[in-house]
């Protein structure tokens, strides 16, 4: 098992290096004139040259890449051309908020999607199945940012049940940081009022994010359940007279979930990408909002760094899923 995990980890090294090359190309090669863009439209020639020297942009490309890569290894993501702050500091401050949002959305999608998919498969070609089919196509077609706006309109503006946006009331101190997740931190601190507040702020963005992965997990779970129900061992169990409930919960569920796991891993990346939109709608102070506000000021270093961080997180998540898969399904381990 240890060898299996180690091999997976070694395999991502070339992927990570490849990603840095892509990001470097996007940041330094694609913009026709990165320095001119940073210096602003009114800069003089001397100002532009000084700025180019300051950021090392007058060096040959491979030297620039080497500087960039060795900086990354030391946790230096470069400097925002606009605010002149190191990007790494900002990323560290905003990342926990994004992760809290993504994990809550994923949890919600799994908790609802797996039982719903199981039910759709058990009642295959009956009305619950048809209903879940239409609803899941609708959910996938719903733009996340529009769903977010509708939720704000209904629950925050008209009914006023939940806050409009943000992560915590500005006038209060957030719970003491241990994990950076406000919900978990407030539980650790035993502060149930803060927990409730954090949860109320989290609810709408998490729902807006979770709907589409929920629908995909549902469809995947339905398909894999149907496939498992046609296996010989299920027929045998049925022939032996086991109750349908026992068959579904003891034999079908576990096998069906293991094939849905891969989709969940893939959706993690999709969720991370989508945080950009949902965070913008709900003013959620995560890396997505950081990236969109950088775009407005045409400051692409933060955007590229956010893309890199998200890529790394996605790759890591898939390794975790791979390992989990090996734990659930011993057959995979020895291939």
């Amino acid at each position: 098992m240890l060898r299996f995990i180690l091999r997976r980890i070694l395999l991502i090294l070339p992927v990570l290096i490849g990603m840095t090359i892509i990001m470097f190309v996007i940041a330094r090669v694609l913009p026709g004139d990165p320095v001119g863009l940073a210096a602003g439209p009114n800069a003089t020639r001397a100002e532009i040259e000084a700025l180019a020297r300051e950021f090392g942009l007058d060096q040959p490309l491979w030297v620039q890449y080497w500087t960039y890569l060795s900086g990354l290894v030391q946790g230096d993501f470069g400097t925002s051309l606009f605010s002149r702050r190191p990007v790494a500091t900002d990323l560290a401050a905003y990342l926990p908020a994004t992760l809290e949002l993504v994990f809550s959305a994923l949890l919600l999608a799994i908790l609802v999607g797996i039982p719903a998919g199981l039910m759709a498969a058990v009642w295959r070609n009956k009305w619950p199945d048809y209903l879940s089919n239409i609803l899941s196509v609708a959910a996938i077609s719903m733009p996340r940012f529009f769903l977010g706006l509708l939720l704000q309109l209904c629950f925050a503006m008209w009914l006023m049940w939940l806050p409009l946006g943000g992560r915590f009331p500005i006038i209060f101190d957030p719970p003491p940081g241990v994990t950076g997740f406000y919900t978990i931190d407030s539980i650790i601190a035993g502060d149930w009022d803060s927990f409730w507040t954090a949860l109320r702020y989290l609810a709408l963005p998490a729902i807006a994010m979770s709907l589409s992965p929920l629908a995909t997990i549902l469809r995947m779970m339905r398909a894999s359940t149907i496939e498992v129900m046609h296996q010989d061992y299920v027929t045998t169990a049925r022939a032996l007279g086991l109750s349908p409930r026992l068959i579904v919960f003891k034999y079908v569920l576990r096998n069906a979930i293991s094939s849905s796991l891969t989709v969940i891993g893939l959706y993690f990346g999709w969720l991370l990408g989508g945080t950009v939109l949902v965070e913008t709608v709900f003013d959620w102070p995560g890396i997505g909002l950081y990236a969109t506000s950088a775009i407005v000021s045409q400051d692409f270093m933060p955007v590229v760094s956010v893309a890199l961080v998200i890529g790394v997180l996605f790759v890591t998540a898939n390794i975790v899923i791979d390992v989990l898969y090996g734990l659930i399904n011993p057959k995979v381990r020895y291939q």
Partner: protein
Amino acid sequence: MTDVPQDSRRSARAEASRRAFYRFRQSRLSMVGATMVAVVVFFTLFGNLLAPYPEHVRGGLNTAERFQAPSLAHPFGTNELGQDVLSLVMAGTPVSVAAGFAVVLIGTVLGVVVGALAGFNGGWIDDVLMRFSDLMLTIPSLILAMAVAAALGPGFVNMIIAIALSWWPGYARLVRGEVLQAREEVYVAAARAIGASPARVLFRHILPNIVSPIIVKMSLDMGFAILTVAALGFIGIGVRPPTPEWGTLLSIARNYMPDFWWTAVFPGMAMFLAVFGFNLLGDGLRDVLDPRARR
């Protein structure tokens, strides 16, 4: 003598497509999807002509009629510039659909070229091309498109390039898999035995036989491409006003909620319904054309 196999082959094909069409018609959701897509295509072609207030589409404003609630004169109300929201939504259809279609088309062409080269040649070409497209797949497409669009600067064409660059790897993987399978088929061996050149085998024999999974993927992707275009517009790196684009309309309108909700809700609904139609149609086509994915 040569007429007989020709004839029976043609009728077998006709029979197969008749059956596919029959199955497609049997599925009510697919028909709903096809109808919705037909409406979208109609507005793509005629949306600009049918807009009741064409001067608003061109950027004209009417400050006397700002923020009017939906009424007979303005079924979707008016926005902060007094422009008719219905006209903007109608004229926004061609922008979104054309951009989405361009993205899917460019992504498909790139993906087919890469995938066919990789699958047909094998060896190190395959390794290099596939490792590269796997690499592109590890960065979520929206984020990659955002980074590229941010580097290229805003604008309609730059946005399409940015999204298409993140779009092709899925097609490359699909086409490579299909080509690898088709390469082993008897008809390919037969064509080779007659002395057909590799290019002829690829273009005349293999590619025509793997068109249906590509079409299924294109129709399923159309909705997502429209969504991505709107998402970039919403973030502010897509189409610029006064060109009416659904995502951009929504990003402006959200500043005027909740009092003037109609400026946001109607463009959003148009976007949702268009994508919903394409997804239903794509699902239906997959059920008909891809025998592996039957309900």
